[in-house]
């Protein structure tokens, strides 16, 4: 049988960076191929070449035996390739049907054939087990449903090869398992799938075959049944990386206490009845699926949003209503969720970002004038102490890699010895080496007595670092469970909101 997809000798360079080097890969018909690799390994670039978003410097793409003209997304779609992006590309104000047919109709036609389209959509949704209401407005759909719409959008365009980019990033565990089941059903209907991921257990659960990318090169291909998570981890990272291990320690006094905090944003209740206590020398993990208002919780503890009700105290003193600057002065360190949007000003040099939080203090300025000597000395110190690589104080911050940018942000916060540290998705998008470094710094701060609130979507991370864990679901927090009592199954259920039903049942 002709392979569904053949990539031959694909090479793509961006300036000095080689994103893909001589990658050769085939996808058999009816197969699920997992493309595994760390962030920056070149997975997305490879798929963008396949889909015609980028042009390869060399190499060819064949779909069902036919050469694909490079750099033409239209040609890729016509050849039967569909792509489901990690970040959805749906128009929220339109209905499911509108979103599905958008762009697939000729512009010259005055009326759209909605009846036919509805019929086709309903047929597809039955055939592949993807239930949706064609008339529902996308804004009202859950993330799981939106993903189904994205998949249907591709199928509606007669895709026979489907590429899914990190499809589980936004799904709770039960939803993810359901997706894997659907993927299996789809291959039985004759579809071929490429499934991009950096999560080992998903790759093991969902794929037939695994291709591992590292540094832009294809380093290994394995049948899923003939490999295991340990081998794949080592192939992906290129060496054994041991994440640091938390040692049990007795926590100190409460530092940050939230008592039934409610937060309304534009008249809508975003957080409700949120209570937690973070003690000195303790990491409290808040785990949750993406989009369950972790961002609002982070904004409140960063001073960007004010609580509407409830009490928030820092070291026994009222901390509600403090501005970011007040919080910084009160000894709060904050690591933002999105390091590019909130963490650094990319176009400023590293040293200005290093001191921006403390610019008004006597250390870095005098009578309103910046002291460049003191600032660059501090920045140089951060670079050395927190191992920020490939950077000097006057490097434009935009040029740092994600991991090094995060080390800079963490360093500028930790250098001031905060008594409370908010770490919001501190390892998102980082490679294994950088994750281990960030974990080590968080544990070090904990052992030095900092009270740390860790907000994360990575179950493994929360279990590894936290002393106690609470789940966040739709802006509400579960009761805390001790790390020793938490296993992935129980936490998975908590993240799906099962504890709320428990509470009602008992």
């Amino acid at each position: 049988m002709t392979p569904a997809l053949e990539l031959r000798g694909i090479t793509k360079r961006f300036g000095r960076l080689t994103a893909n080097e001589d990658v050769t890969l085939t996808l058999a018909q009816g197969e699920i191929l997992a493309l595994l690799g760390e962030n920056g390994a070149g997975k997305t670039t490879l798929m963008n070449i396949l889909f015609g978003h980028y042009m390869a410097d060399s190499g060819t793409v064949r779909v069902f035996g036919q050469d694909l003209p490079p750099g033409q997304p239209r040609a890729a779609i016509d050849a039967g390739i569909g792509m489901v992006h990690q970040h959805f590309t749906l128009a929220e104000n339109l209905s499911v049907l509108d979103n599905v047919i958008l762009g697939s109709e000729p512009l010259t036609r005055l009326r759209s054939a909605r009846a036919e389209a509805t019929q086709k959509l309903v047929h597809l949704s039955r055939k592949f087990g993807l239930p949706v209401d064609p008339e529902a407005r996308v804004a009202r759909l859950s993330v799981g449903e939106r993903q189904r719409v994205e998949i249907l959008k591709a199928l509606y365009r007669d895709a026979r090869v489907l590429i899914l980019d990190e499809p589980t990033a936004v799904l709770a565990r039960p939803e993810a398992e359901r997706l894997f089941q659907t993927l299996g059903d789809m291959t039985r209907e004759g579809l071929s799938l490429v499934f991009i991921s950096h999560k080992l257990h998903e790759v093991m659960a969902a794929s037939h075959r695994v291709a591992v990318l590292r540094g832009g090169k294809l380093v290994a291909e394995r049948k899923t049944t003939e490999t295991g998570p340990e081998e794949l981890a080592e192939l992906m990272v290129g060496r054994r990386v041991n994440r640091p291990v938390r040692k049990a320690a007795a926590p100190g006094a409460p530092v940050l206490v939230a008592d039934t905090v409610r937060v309304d944003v534009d008249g809508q209740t975003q957080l409700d009845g949120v209570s937690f206590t973070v003690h000195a020398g303790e990491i409290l993990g808040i785990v949750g699926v993406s989009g369950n208002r972790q961002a609002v919780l982070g904004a409140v503890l960063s001073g960007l949003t004010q609580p509407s009700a409830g009490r928030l105290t820092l070291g026994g003193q009222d901390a509600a209503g403090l501005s970011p600057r007040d919080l910084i002065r009160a000894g709060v360190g904050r690591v933002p969720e999105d390091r590019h949007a909130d963490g650094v000003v990319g176009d400023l040099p590293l040293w200005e970002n290093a001191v921006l939080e403390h610019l008004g203090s006597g250390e870095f300025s005098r009578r309103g004038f910046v002291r460049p000597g003191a600032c660059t000395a501090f920045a140089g110190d951060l670079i050395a102490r927190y191992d920020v690589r490939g950077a000097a104080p006057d490097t434009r911050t935009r040029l740092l890699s994600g991991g090094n940018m995060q080390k800079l942000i963490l360093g500028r916060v930790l250098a001031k010895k905060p008594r409370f540290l908010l770490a919001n998705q501190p390892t998102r998008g980082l490679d294994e080496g950088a994750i281990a470094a960030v974990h080590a710094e968080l544990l070090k701060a904990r052992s030095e007595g900092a009270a740390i609130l860790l907000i994360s979507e990575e179950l493994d991370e929360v279990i590894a670092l936290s002393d106690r864990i609470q789940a966040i679901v739709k802006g509400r927090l579960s009761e805390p469970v001790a790390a020793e009592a938490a296993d992935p199954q129980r936490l998975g259920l908590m993240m799906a909101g099962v504890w709320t039903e428990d509470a009602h049942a008992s």
Partner: protein
Amino acid sequence: MRLERRTDAPLHLLILAPLTAVAAALVLAAGLIAVAGVNPVSAYGEMLQGALGSRLAITEMLTRATPLVLTGLAAAVAFRARLWNIGGEGQFFVGALITAWFGHALALPGWAGVPVLMVAGMAAGAALLVGPTLLRLRFGVDEVVTTLLLNFIVILFVGLMIEGPLRDPLAFGWPQSVPVDGDLRLPDLVARTRLHIGLLFAILAAGLVWLILARTVFGTEARAAGLNASAAAFAGVSLPRTLLGVAVLSGALAGLAGSIEVMGVTASVTTTMSPGFGYAGIVVAMLAALHPAGVVAAAIFVATIFVGADAMSRATGVPSFIADVIVALCLLTMLVALLFTTHRIRR
């Protein structure tokens, strides 16, 4: 063909960008000059001759550059912080009006009067920009609209004043305001020309603005707020306070331009005293890539076009409005050129 973001903007591109933009604008304008039936090469020759060809021409050009440096700085400071101050023209006029009024009504001695009038002009310009800034901060009103429309209101108000309370009774019905007292006129920089010491104030202002932006806490925070407002807010920068500070500085610079123009050149205010100094300041700032030192160079360039176009018009008959066309084209070509400093074309 598509645009790809560059990882870094090399310095030679940043210097090349305005030069290329100017060259492209001149080529485009050459087409129009040809349509007017004149050889573009000789027309540009007349232009250069008229702006730089003699001692007098150069002093005229520098006289014209003086307010442009200040309005250019006003735009540069505001744009750096993403405060879109399009109201330089209005701020120029309120600065000019206050200066003429106070300079006539208050019997000030020269040594004290000049600084007092400058501060008054700056305060008036600042006040005119603080209003729209507050509206943006409080209600999210787009300052592009408010500052732009205020220009027309201010110019009509100036018209009202010089036809009414501030009318010069000795001007034989000519619509101009009362003049500032003679000892409040700025001394000449070059004898028997119109060039006055205001040019030195403008260059000094450029140095001060550079110092503020590059070396003060306020300037650093303003730049951070302009480049990434949410990261600046996260780091504890108060956006309202920073933007208001920027509004005061920007409005004051444009107001100072009006004040100096009255004390240095016109003595009284007319509604035609500005050939669009406020608007041209925007072009100056963009050509300078918002850098204070570049503002001085760009102001000299734009003044050369303005003064040279008058001479060209007299010699060749091409309407002097071509100056406005060239300056406007420069803005457009510079915007394109700036795109290429941050992006590259990929095939």
